[in-house]
């Protein structure tokens, strides 16, 4: 995103804007102010950001649909921030002040996706005030989502290719994140989303790639791991993690500022801390968030009293999808006992160990090869009717003449068996 000159930011392109529907409306209808030739007089009572009050300036007969849901959408509520703060016991009035100083600047107005660059990068009309139906990717989305998603997607991290959807299919954000997702669907606070990964996956990779779902194609990787590993476990590459964020207000300038200690590239697979029917994966890539127990110390003591109640290595969906990755070359890259791409305890800081118990990988995937899985005996069709769904109950000891499983199978759990032993048709 090229920096704009101050005048460029506010230059209206009459030729482009006036013929549009919004251009037919007088400036003052939306911005208030006074008809005067002098800037200062004209700007008395100015409303710089009309769309921060969407019900007043965007609703009515025009966009009632978006206006009804947007106040409850995550971009507007920033509830994801609160959900994370509250999970760690944060509910002190001092945090409200902190939020106002450091977080609220990312509250998004309609205009920041459709009219002008986000205020936190200094604003500036996209196209001479034309209301763009499709938000421009680098001037809107990645102006806010720059340091992680943007850099990953656009391939700006050195040596790491951008997302295949961008590199090869020239897709932009909104090809996957459609208007309805951005505007939200809830119409009241009760049903509003609590964070970005609540509920169903949206968007969902298999909605566009039906063939990659289990039983979709003949790729053994998809067959075996369609719902035990998230797609990103095999299709994303190294992404950004950060450590040690602290926020404060400058004594010299009075401006809020932040500091993060370290930013580094990792690729680590952890256990899924939010496993659910909608997100059944046992394993997902995890990203380190820069939160620390004393991140908000400037505002008060012990503001996150339950720091250990939520992981610092979090569920993530890195935006640098590739068809071929180092880890998906073969089954053995993950099934050879090598722990380097798994979030094992040795990779977690001692003071964060407890917070991450739900994510840390304790036992590595079983050692196996593709041949072994392909040659594994099938399960008799009659097993479908087994009342007990415990395979080990019979096969460990040979109860009722069941074949005894080999000794090296002790590491498997019941849920692992069907990965190799397919049901006879």
């Amino acid at each position, binding site marked *: 995103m090229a920096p704009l000159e101050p005048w460029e930011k506010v230059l209206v392109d009459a030729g482009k804007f006036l013929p549009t529907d919004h251009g037919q409306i*007088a400036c003052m209808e939306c911005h208030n102010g006074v008809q005067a030739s002098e800037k200062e007089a004209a700007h008395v009572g100015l409303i710089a950001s009309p769309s921060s009050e969407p019900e007043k300036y965007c609703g009515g007969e025009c966009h009632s649909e978006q206006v009804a849901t947007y106040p409850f959408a995550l971009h507007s509520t920033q509830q994801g921030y609160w959900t994370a703060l509250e999970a760690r016991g944060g509910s002190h009035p001092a945090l409200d002040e902190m939020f106002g100083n450091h977080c609220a600047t990312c509250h998004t107005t309609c205009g920041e996706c459709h009219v002008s660059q986000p205020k936190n990068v200094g604003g500036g009309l996209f196209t001479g005030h034309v209301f763009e139906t499709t938000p421009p990717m680098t001037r809107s989305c990645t102006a806010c989502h720059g340091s992680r998603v943007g850099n990953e997607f656009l391939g700006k991290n050195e040596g790491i290719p951008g997302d295949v959807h961008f590199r090869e299919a020239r897709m932009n954000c909104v090809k996957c994140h459609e208007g309805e997702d951005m505007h939200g669907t809830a119409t009241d606070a009760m049903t509003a989303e609590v964070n970005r990964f609540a509920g169903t996956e949206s968007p969902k990779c298999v909605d566009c790639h039906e063939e990659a779902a289990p039983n979709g194609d003949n790729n053994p990787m998809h067959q075996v791991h369609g719902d035990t590993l998230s797609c990103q476990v095999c299709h994303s590459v190294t992404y950004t993690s950060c450590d040690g964020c602290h926020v404060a207000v400058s004594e010299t300038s009075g401006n809020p500022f932040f500091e*993060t200690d370290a930013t580094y590239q990792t690729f680590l697979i952890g256990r899924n801390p939010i496993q659910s029917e909608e997100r059944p994966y046992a394993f997902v890539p995890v990203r380190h968030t820069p939160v620390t127990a004393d991140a908000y110390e400037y505002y008060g003591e012990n503001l996150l009293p339950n720091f250990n109640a939520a992981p610092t290595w979090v569920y993530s969906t890195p935006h640098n999808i590739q068809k071929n990755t180092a880890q998906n070359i073969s089954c053995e890259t993950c099934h050879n006992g090598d722990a380097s791409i798994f979030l094992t305890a040795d990779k977690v800081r001692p003071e964060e160990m407890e917070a991450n118990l739900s994510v840390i990988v304790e036992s590595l995937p079983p050692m196996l090869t593709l041949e072994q899985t392909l040659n594994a005996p099938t399960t008799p069709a009659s097993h479908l009717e087994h009342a007990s769904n415990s395979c080990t109950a019979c096969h460990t000891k040979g109860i009722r003449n069941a074949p005894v499983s080999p000794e090296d199978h002790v590491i498997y759990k019941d849920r692992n068996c069907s990965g190799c032993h397919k049901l006879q048709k």
Partner: protein
Amino acid sequence: MKLKPIGLLIAGACLIAACATVKVESPTGTEPPLATEAVLASTPEADKCLACHTDKQRLIDTAKPVELAEAESKGVG
């Protein structure tokens, strides 16, 4: 993109503040509702807002210079 959001924020804030040096509470409830039937077509002759905001030189002359507020944040936000 390596943003310095705070520095830029300050720059942006100055810019927006520049448009409202006389601080007046926005009069709530007094604005007329959006004219939906009788829309007011603007022309630079009739509308002083438009006249200025389409005149590059006037905008250059009146825009507050961006104060190079030193970015105090460190690291990636």
